């Protein structure tokens, strides 16, 4: 499916999707409440078949905090990038996509551990790298650690 059609398809599912400029991939910002249903549709519908989530990154844009999903279809060979954002830094919660792509389980635990993003309906929402009593989320831009990180 070419990019224009993919864009139309996406708008037909989520009318409020915004598109960002990107040379490489079609990038869409999705309202976070639509994420799970969109993910399911993108994976299951015949003309999209996004069956492979090859990267899930949590990003702190300082004003916003969010998750970037890189998707591709192994059968149709097209890519899409989905973004969800929120301004709520204290209690950042998104829907988990673990039931759609199993690989998300580890990715989401990593996002929780390092960026403090919680995922609803995740089967095992624990820290994955750091100790359970670690305070703060190191990859956030406002994370301060005077002992271990030397500011330049």
């Amino acid at each position, binding site marked *: 499916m070419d990019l224009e059609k993919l864009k139309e398809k996406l708008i037909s599912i989520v009318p409020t999707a915004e598109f960002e400029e990107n040379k*490489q991939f079609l990038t869409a910002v999705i309202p976070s409440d639509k994420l799970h249903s969109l993910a399911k549709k993108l994976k299951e519908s015949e003309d999209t078949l996004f069956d492979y989530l*090859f*990267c899930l990154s949590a990003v702190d844009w300082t004003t916003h905090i969010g998750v970037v999903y890189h998707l591709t279809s192994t059968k149709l060979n097209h890519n899409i990038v989905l973004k969800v954002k929120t301004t709520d830094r204290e209690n950042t919660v998104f829907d988990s996509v673990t039931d759609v792509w199993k690989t998300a389980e*580890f*990715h989401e635990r990593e996002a929780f551990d390092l960026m403090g993003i919680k995922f609803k309906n995740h089967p095992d929402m*624990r820290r994955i*790298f750091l100790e359970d009593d670690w305070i703060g989320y190191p990859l956030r831009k406002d994370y301060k650690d005077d002992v271990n*990180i030397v500011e330049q």
Partner: protein
Amino acid sequence: MTETTENYQLDQEEYIINMGPQHPSTHGVLRFEVSLKGEMVRNIRPHCGYIHRGIEKMCEKNTYQQIIHLTDRLDYLSAHSNNELVCLTVEEALEIEVPERVKYIRTIMAELNRIASHQLWWCSMGMDMGGLTCFFYGLRDREPILDIFEETCGGRLLLSYNCPGGVMYDLHPNFQKRVKDYIKYFRKKLPEYDALLSGNIIFLERTKGLGVLTLEDAISFGVTGPTGRASGFSCDIRKTQPYSAYSKVDFKEILYTEGDTFHRYKARIDEMWESMNIIEQLIDNIPEGDYAVKMKPIIKLPAGEYYKSVETARGELGLYLISDGNKSPYRFKLRSPNFINLGALASMVKDTKIADLVAISASLDLVIPDIDR
């Protein structure tokens, strides 16, 4: 025990043993919490992070030239590919075309690195299955590759040979001859590997049909590399998105459909043959020219988002880089193949025995620093 058992209810007769972080077959500081019923594995939960160094965070503070020396330390057995990824991303973002010579050198180096990595995997897999002799055979044949690296790069394991715009120094004059000699030597030695391990009935009995990962699961778990390809997931980045000189060479993507331990093993052995084919096609045709483009001492990428991936010995290593136009990246997210492959392990080992758990995790070829980053 407090956090580990809280979301998992133990059946009667079930008990938990800790495999790792100090255990001979986790190949590093990985810990499996294994629930067992007798010898049968009921469930495993991996615990990572024992050597979490925060490389992603460190990269956000460093310049692109400095980052090279950090990404070496991810998957130390594919150090070259890791560095190549950063360089490719930077070059793509700046729209720099590197000289042909650089592309050839990078491809040859990456393939040599892949062979060395698969050799180490082969010997440690043999060791995990109880055949200790494999370990020495593998290390013996890996040594000349490291010597070749040392001659050109100075490093044996962590090469740090790539830099944005090219490679750090030109090839050593002996390079071509030594590589050709080595390929000739290793073509004779690789069948020996088959004779020692894959021709052995005990080995076959212990690997065939075990730890099956179906194609759907492989895609859903995002399992890449030889592990994914043994399940029939065509995920070779060298084929799907050719970088460096891979578009100029003719090679097969190793694909099997069985997805069991034995075919993961087979896929890697076959990859070594393919790597040798690739090197042989390139080694005589390395074009003359510069070994690097002159770069500014401080590289600033234009603001934006970049995603690039390369094929390391273990699968697709992806880099999602967000730049805000400064000298260091704003966000440096690595999609490390081992971390993702580890996610699939629990589903593969269910209802096997402890010995199978060891064999299956060996066939995934996990490198712990790449999991933890």
